[in-house]
Each structure stands twice: as structure tokens, then as C-alpha cells.
């Protein structure tokens, strides 16, 4: 807000711990009546220094640390880290492992999107829908537990492959779960999209124009809801996606138009649940036989990683958008450099155009609409002192260039 105005602005701080926020982040709203004039936010409240710890551990250990970057998208981080290390060490991942990775990855997307849908319903005050979506989400959690042994922080991906195979008996369990979701999808779509209240609360609320989405480098469903055709699974296929037919889900393909509002973000995420079901089904039918890991003996795997020198990048389409891991190995146990860019890091800046001019009551749903994941982001957020919490685009760019230079050594 400009300091020239004579009227003192009415500032409302929300956070860092607030019942409407699932994770710690500090907002400062500048209000004029009911309207948000400007907004400022300070992430970095959950910074744990994961990259620093990673540089003191070896790649096999780091995979389990990457699981715990974020509890919702665990497989995303471990997968993109593994992709980067495999690229450096020249490890060829068996095809079957690629398919298993894809299946778990898509189940994660299903549970993450349902989780988000529930949270969104809760933010709108529609608690029965929250309970409904979380009840059906448990089906995916059961299958994930069956496949990986864990409900959260799966620990299934390892450098060079996966740690568990999918046996024929599990196909029936997966198939049953997919059938349930495909049957439910129409119900969920009609609950969310045909409901008059949800339509009134979400249509043309928190609009992010296509231009803003591109300029702020938003990724994932947030970008797709604004009509940006990006999806790493389609643009830069990894794991088994090269063999599969994946097209980015855009709201205009379903509704015939793109508003870039909260409603469109609901559409994109719900349709992606259906898309994930199709991908998993295709994976199951085309999954080749063979080994599930390139190197079973961890000691040998470690020796291979230790000898490796070079740099690698792993990019994965997380439920929230692109997740990127950069790793540089210099023939030592631990990586010389490790940088994580989680998807929410790219998406947080889009809050500002969305929130400006909106009503106070719309703040929770707009904040939730990008599906922020702050524990992912807070490893990297740069907060030097509490006053200077927003970094302008130039600052971000400068910091980004500096970091690149530093990584180049």
C-alpha cells in the first residue's frame, strides 16, 4: 500500500497460528471496510533446514528425508530426488519400477486432491462435504497402505527403483478402489459444481488471469485453472508417463470457458482424480514383468552413488504442480549441493493478485484454493527479518540468480 495516503490503513494480522490456517504462515491484510486492499505474507515459519541436513547424509538416507519434506506429497519429493541421483550416477531404472512409481504417484494425487476438496468445503463452511470427501479418501489411503506399508510418508521409492513390488493379488484391491472412485466422481462433481452455494462462493472469486499466472510462474492445477496448458506428465514425461496418454486437464474442456477462479480450480482437481484412475488402470494392464530395482544391495548402490560426479535435475508433476530437485555430486558420500523447489513455492505469489480486492470472508477459500503446502516451501523461503517479508519480483530474481551462481561455484 502506498504510504502517501493520509488515512491510516486498517491492518489485520492473521497467523502464524490461526485456526483457519492448517500450517504456520503470517498474513497481514490491509483492509478498507470489507475489502482487502493489499496483502502481505511471511512464510518460513516451519523452516527445518532440510537441504543443510541432506548435505550431511548419503543419497540412500536422503530419500527418507525427502519423504518428510512434506507429509502429503512424499512420493513426489523422493521420486524427483531419485531421478536426479539416477541421472548423475547413470543408473537405469527397470521398467516395472517406473510403472510402480507411476501407480503410487497417481494414488497420491487422488488422496491429495480429495484432501484438498475436503479442506475447500470446510473453508466454505460446508462441513458435511468435508466429512464425505475425507471418508472416501480413506479408500485411497487403504490402497496406499496396502501397496507401500505406510499411510503417509510411504518410503517406497529408492534410488534405482522401488522397495516393494505389486503382486497379482493386489491388482484386485486396486481395481476395486478405482471402481469406487469412478462411481463416486459424478456424485462429487455434482456436489461441488451444481451446488448453488458453492457456485456463489467460488465463481469469479480469487481470479488469477492467464497473464498473471504466466508472469508469476504458477504451476500445477492453479496454472491449469487459469488456462495455462502445463503438465509435466504431458510436457516432459518421466517414469512411465512416456508410454501413457496424459493430457493436461483444463477447465474449458469441461465447462467450455476459463475464468481462472476458485471454481475452476475445483473443476481441475476433481477431474484429475478421474484422470488418475484412468492412468492407474492403464499402468496395471501394461505393466511389464521384471526386477523392481536396478541394484538390490544397498552397499553396492551406495558405492555407485559415491563414485558419481556431475549434476542432475529431477522434475515431477506433484499434485500441486511442478516439483524440482537439483543435485550435484562430487564423488563423495553426500551431495555437494541439493536444492529443492516445491510446487507451492511457485504458487504462493499468486495469492497477491487473487486476494487484492476480495472480501474478507473469501480469504480462507482463496488462500486454500492454491492448495498451499508450506512445509514443502519453508525449507527454502527467504525470510531475513519479519518486516521485509515480501520479496518483490526483482528481489526474487536477484536472489535466484545469486543462488544459481553460487551453485555453479
Amino acid at each position, binding site marked *: 500500500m502506498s504510504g502517501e495516503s493520509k488515512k491510516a490503513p486498517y491492518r489485520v494480522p492473521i497467523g502464524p497460528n490461526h*485456526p483457519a490456517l*492448517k500450517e504456520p504462515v503470517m498474513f497481514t491484510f490491509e483492509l478498507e471496510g470489507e475489502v482487502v486492499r493489499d496483502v502481505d505474507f511471511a512464510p518460513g515459519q516451519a523452516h*527445518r*533446514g532440510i537441504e543443510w541436513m541432506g548435505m550431511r547424509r548419503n543419497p540412500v538416507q536422503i530419500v527418507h528425508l525427502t519423504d*518428510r519434506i512434506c507429509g502429503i506429497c512424499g512420493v513426489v519429493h523422493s521420486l524427483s530426488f531419485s531421478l536426479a541421483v539416477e541421472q548423475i550416477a547413470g543408473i537405469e531404472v527397470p521398467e516395472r519400477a517406473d510403472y510402480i512409481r507411476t501407480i503410487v504417484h497417481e494414488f497420491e494425487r487422488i488422496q491429495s486432491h480429495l484432501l484438498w476438496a475436503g479442506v475447500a468445503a470446510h473453508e466454505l463452511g460446508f462441513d458435511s462435504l468435508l*466429512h464425505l470427501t*475425507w471418508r472416501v479418501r480413506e479408500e485411497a489411503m487403504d490402497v496406499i497402505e496396502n501397496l507401500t506399508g505406510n499411510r503417509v510418508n510411504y518410503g517406497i521409492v529408492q534410488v534405482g527403483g522401488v522397495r516393494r513390488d505389486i503382486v497379482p493379488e493386489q491388482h484386485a484391491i486396486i481395481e476395486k478402489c478405482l471402481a469406487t472412485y469412478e462411481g463416486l466422481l459424478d456424485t462429487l462433481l455434482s456436489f461441488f459444481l451444481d451446488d448453488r452455494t458453492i457456485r456463489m462462493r467460488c465463481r469469479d472469486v480469487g481470479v488469477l488471469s492467464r497473464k498473471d499466472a504466466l508472469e508469476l510462474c504458477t504451476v500445477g492445477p492453479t496454472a491449469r485453472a487459469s488456462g495455462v496448458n502445463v503438465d509435466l506428465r504431458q510436457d516432459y514425461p518421466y517414469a512411465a508417463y512416456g508410454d501413457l496418454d496424459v493430457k493436461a486437464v483444463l477447465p474449458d474442456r469441461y465447462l467450455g470457458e476459463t475464468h481462472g477462479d476458485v471454481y475452476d480450480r475445483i473443476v481441475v482437481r476433481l477431474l484429475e482424480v478421474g484422470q488418475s484412475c484412468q492412468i492407474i488402470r492403464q499402468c496395471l494392464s501394461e505393466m511389464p514383468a521384471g526386477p523392481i530395482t536396478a541394484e538390490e544391495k544397498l552397499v553396492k548402490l551406495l558405492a555407485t552413488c559415491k563414485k558419481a560426479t556431475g549434476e542432475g535435475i529431477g522434475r515431477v508433476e506433484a499434485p500441486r504442480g511442478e516439483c524440482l530437485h537439483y543435485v550435484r555430486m562430487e564423488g563423495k558420500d553426500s551431495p555437494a549441493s541439493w536444492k529443492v523447489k516445491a510446487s507451492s513455492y511457485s504458487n504462493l505469489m499468486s495469492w497477491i493478485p487473487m486476494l487484492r480486492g476480495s472480501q474478507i470472508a473469501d480469504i480462507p477459500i482463496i488462500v486454500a484454493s492454491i492448495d498451499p503446502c508450506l512445509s514443502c516451501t519453508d525449507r527454502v523461503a527467504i525470510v531475513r527479518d519479519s518486516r521485509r517479508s515480501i520479496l518483490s519480483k526483482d528481489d526474487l530474481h536477484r536472489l535466484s540468480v545469486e543462488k544459481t551462481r553460487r551453485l555453479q561455484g
Partner: protein
Amino acid sequence: MKLNALFNRSLWVYHFNSGSCNGCEIEIVATLTPRYDPERFGIRLVGSPRHADVMLVTGPVVHRMKDRLLRVYQQIPDPKIVMCIGACGISGGVFYESYNLDGPVDEVIPVDVYVPGCPPRPEAIIHGVVKALEKLERLQGVEA
């Protein structure tokens, strides 16, 4: 466990995230939804620490959260129970060597019930709440 005495009042919990990875948060919310439905025992999540009997703390207490954890702890009326959910709040977990930790939780505030796991299953969290109930009853001197 004696049902009559234990379930004669409801237990309200307040959740505090001290820098967790979100895994425990998700499991806490999953615990509260229909599959497990602890609300039938009167266990429910509240938005204000001043309404709470139990404080659920997740995360390894990162530096910026220490002061806030203390302040929220002081806002909960006595008698209160603190439950530490997840391995990283108990010992630091995978983050044990981080430079930014002021935890584990029991070095900042007194903890009554520890629920281990990374993250703990919903059943484990409910079990922890039952343990908390028993302790709260003892603190209040309710005859079993």
C-alpha cells in the same frame, strides 16, 4: 479403563503445528473424520486454545515457533494435557541434527502423552487421547 468416569465429559483438543511436515496434521484430521469419528466420544478440535483441554503438538519446534508454542501453552486453562504427536516432536526424528530446532517439544513445554510414529496412525492418536483422558481424570481427582 472405566467408561463411566472417563466419558462423563467431552474432551476438546487444540492442535499446534510447530514446524511439522504435515504428515501428522493430515493424520489428525483423518482421525477426526467419519472413519474413526472420535466426536462420538466428545473429542473435537477447537479453534482457540482457551477452549481446549488437550493440546496436540506436532513438529520438532523450529526456532520461530518456540515462543509461540510457549504462549499458546500458557493460554490453555488448567488442568491441561499436552500430547506430543509424531517422532520429530519426541526426539527430533529425521530432523534431529538441524540447526533450526529448539525442540524436542518436552524441552520447551511439559509433555504428558507421547504418541510415536512418523506419522502415527489414527488409531494411535485416539489411543493417546484416551491415555490423556485418564491422566486428566487423575489430575482433576475424579473418582473412577
